[in-house]
């Protein structure tokens, strides 16, 4: 901050003016410099007077009083002992427990509920569709395998697998005999 001088240092002078308004005691040398500055700087002198008046006006504002009817309302609303924090916490815990219990009961009741015929029909249709797909896949696999057996591409181990091949029964009997 610039030192307060006679021709400059207005910012320092303003700071000193505010400090004085705040009730701060300026050091003797600082107070003397401020007075010298104010004697020669009309702007700071005017600002100092204005700011002191602003402060005086603010301090003179009459303050509103709390109406008696509102005071009576406060005293009526506080006539019972306040709820303790422990009581509030216990109540919050009880509410949380009750909510959890309600959710669990709801889930349990949902499971016990009689099945809906439409849901059963939908599940049966889905099952039939999946079984049909599986059956077709098995059929294709069997046909491909039989084709490879007949063409001689199968491994020796596969020959031991009982398969319903045309003429296999007779061939097997022939081998055994």
């Amino acid at each position, binding site marked *: 901050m610039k030192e307060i001088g006679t021709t400059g240092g207005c910012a320092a002078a303003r700071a000193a003016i505010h400090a004085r308004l705040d009730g701060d005691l300026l050091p003797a040398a600082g107070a003397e410099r401020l007075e010298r500055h104010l004697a020669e700087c009309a702007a700071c002198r005017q600002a100092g007077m*204005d*700011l002191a*008046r602003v402060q005086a006006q603010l301090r003179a504002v*009459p303050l*509103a*009083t709390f109406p008696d009817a509102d005071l009576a309302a406060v*005293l009526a609303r506080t006539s019972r002992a306040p709820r303790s924090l422990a009581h509030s916490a216990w109540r919050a815990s009880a509410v949380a427990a009750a909510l959890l219990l309600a959710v669990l009961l709801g889930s349990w009741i949902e499971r016990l509920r009689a099945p809906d015929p439409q849901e059963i029909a939908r599940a049966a249709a889905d099952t039939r569709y999946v079984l049909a797909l599986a059956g077709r896949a098995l059929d294709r696999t069997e046909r491909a395998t039989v084709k490879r057996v007949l063409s001689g591409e199968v491994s020796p181990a596969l020959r031991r697998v009982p398969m319903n091949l045309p003429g296999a029964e007779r061939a097997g009997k022939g081998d055994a005999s």
Partner: protein
Amino acid sequence: MDRQAFEEAVREHKDRVHAYAVMMLRDAEEARDVTQEALIRLWEHWSRIDADGRRMWLTRIAHNLCIDRIRRRRVRGETDLENVIPLHSDPAPGPGQIAWAGQVGQALASALSGLSDTDRAVVVMREMQGLAYEEIAATLGLPMGTLKARLHRARERLRERLVQAGVAP
């Protein structure tokens, strides 16, 4: 729970809390609501607040309640009430309050409304209610240097607004 001590505390602090809310909100009804709520909260937290700390606790609660209401007003798009409601808001103002409804009082009320919420709070607490700097700093959570800088800036702005309004301070 010492009921008598509570009632004494309410009677000791009610007007100061109410005056603060009036200055911050410029709305008599809202200020009464805030004061009631602050005093009821004092009752609810009575056992946890030291006797020495009651004034600061109540001021902080009142300040927070006022700021909440000011923010809600802004969310609703309501404008500040400057130039509408005088600084005092008693239904039956005394002679001094009527005098303040004059040109200077209106200009000062308007100038106060032009300050930021925190700057207005600092001015009200310090210049109008005479609270100590340490108490204001603790209530608003401001470092001392910041508090004084805000007060100085607010004084300068009030002066400028009063000069602009043609009301020599």
